[in-house]
């Protein structure tokens, strides 16, 4: 059973340790906790040395996706407490002798959860909902904070328009080049063979003066036969089954679960240099194995 300490017990301890009267200690603690709540509601940040920092983030309702239904009725505040280093160290004293250990490839522990950097949680946040009717002051603060948003919203639209314009310009210039290429096949470049239609334009490939190394490398594509798996393809293409994970990474958009890959699916075979694939290098194999194990754990 865990000990629960209340204000009375804290007061007794403070009286004893600070050598002050009981009433003074009680008044101090009451004011201390009340001052925290009062300050946090007025200021966005309160830092108390050796204790921690309270941070308040004001949000408009539209910033919180699940609460979209209440878009026009509520505002939200996120309250977070981040303990100070001194407090963290004090509570973690039993583990102070442990350090993080770099794991060699192939080493794994059963029952130990794997946390990726992007999934790492920060301090716990408390979401507080405030009715808009009661929060005119806050509403105006949020509006001031989000004043720049309309411009920000246009950035992706403008970006997309710029990309589309660039593509149109590129294809129009390619179309202009096409008649020239037909009239003078000797001038055909590597670009024309890849961007045009190679199967219909046989003269271009035959008469090209470019060496194969100068041509842009087309990724190899195969259709998964009924009797093959990612491991067998990895063995065939890269010389080791463990490199299946890189085929999976390259086709992650198409493969929902690496254990169930539909027959006939078109797979892009990655270039060996892209993932540092080397079957003769035990480290490369071990790295692929560790990554493969990690991916498979996600589907267990």
């Amino acid at each position, binding site marked *: 059973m*865990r*000990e629960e*300490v*209340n204000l009375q017990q*804290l007061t007794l301890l*403070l009286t004893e*340790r600070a050598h002050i009267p009981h009433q003074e*200690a009680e008044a*101090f*603690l009451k*004011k*201390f*906790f*009340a*001052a*925290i*709540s*009062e*300050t946090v*509601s007025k*200021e966005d*940040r*309160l*830092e*108390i040395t*050796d*204790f*921690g920092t309270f941070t308040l983030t004001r949000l408009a309702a539209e910033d919180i996706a699940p609460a979209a239904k209440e878009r026009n009725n509520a505002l939200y*505040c996120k*309250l977070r*407490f981040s*303990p100070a280093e001194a*407090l963290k160290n*004090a*509570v*973690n*004293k039993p*583990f102070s002798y*442990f350090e*993080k*250990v770099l*794991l060699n490839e192939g080493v794994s522990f059963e029952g*130990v*959860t*794997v*946390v*990726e*950097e*992007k999934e790492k949680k920060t*301090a*716990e946040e*408390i979401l*507080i909902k*405030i*009715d808009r009717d*009661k*929060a005119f002051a*806050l509403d105006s603060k949020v509006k001031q904070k989000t004043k720049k948003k309309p411009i920000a919203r246009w950035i992706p639209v403008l970006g997309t328009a710029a990309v589309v314009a660039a593509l149109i310009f590129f294809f129009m210039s390619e179309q202009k080049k096409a008649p020239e290429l037909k009239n003078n096949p000797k001038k055909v470049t590597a670009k024309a063979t890849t961007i045009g239609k190679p199967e219909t334009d046989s003269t271009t490939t035959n008469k090209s003066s470019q060496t194969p190394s100068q041509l842009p490398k087309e990724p190899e594509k195969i259709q998964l036969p009924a009797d093959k798996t990612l491991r067998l393809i990895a063995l065939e293409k890269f010389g080791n089954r463990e490199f299946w994970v890189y085929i999976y990474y390259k086709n992650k958009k198409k493969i929902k679960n690496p254990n169930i890959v539909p027959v006939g699916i078109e797979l892009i075979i990655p270039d060996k240099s892209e993932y540092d694939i080397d079957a003769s290098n035990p480290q490369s194999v071990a790295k692929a194995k*560790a*990554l493969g194990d990690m991916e498979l754990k996600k589907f267990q």
Partner: protein
Amino acid sequence: MTNEDFVAALSQQLNLETKKTLEILATAITIISEKLAEGARISVENFGILDTEKKPEHIFVEQESLQRFLMPPEIEVVFKPDSAFIEKFKEKTA
């Protein structure tokens, strides 16, 4: 608000010298830290609960290097405000 401003405000409210306020505050924080380190839960009315939660050992994968680290267990300090704190907060904010 910085620690200095907070101590100044507390001194004024309690009618205490800043030096004295700093001493009592340091002692109070030491007591809170010790109690949390002992595994106790601190529950204060109209404020909330200061508690600890154990995060078990885990393998942490760095996004860029894909290096894996065995991380030791960790105790996290969490603050859960009570309903009175939240109501007061709402009133003040509005």
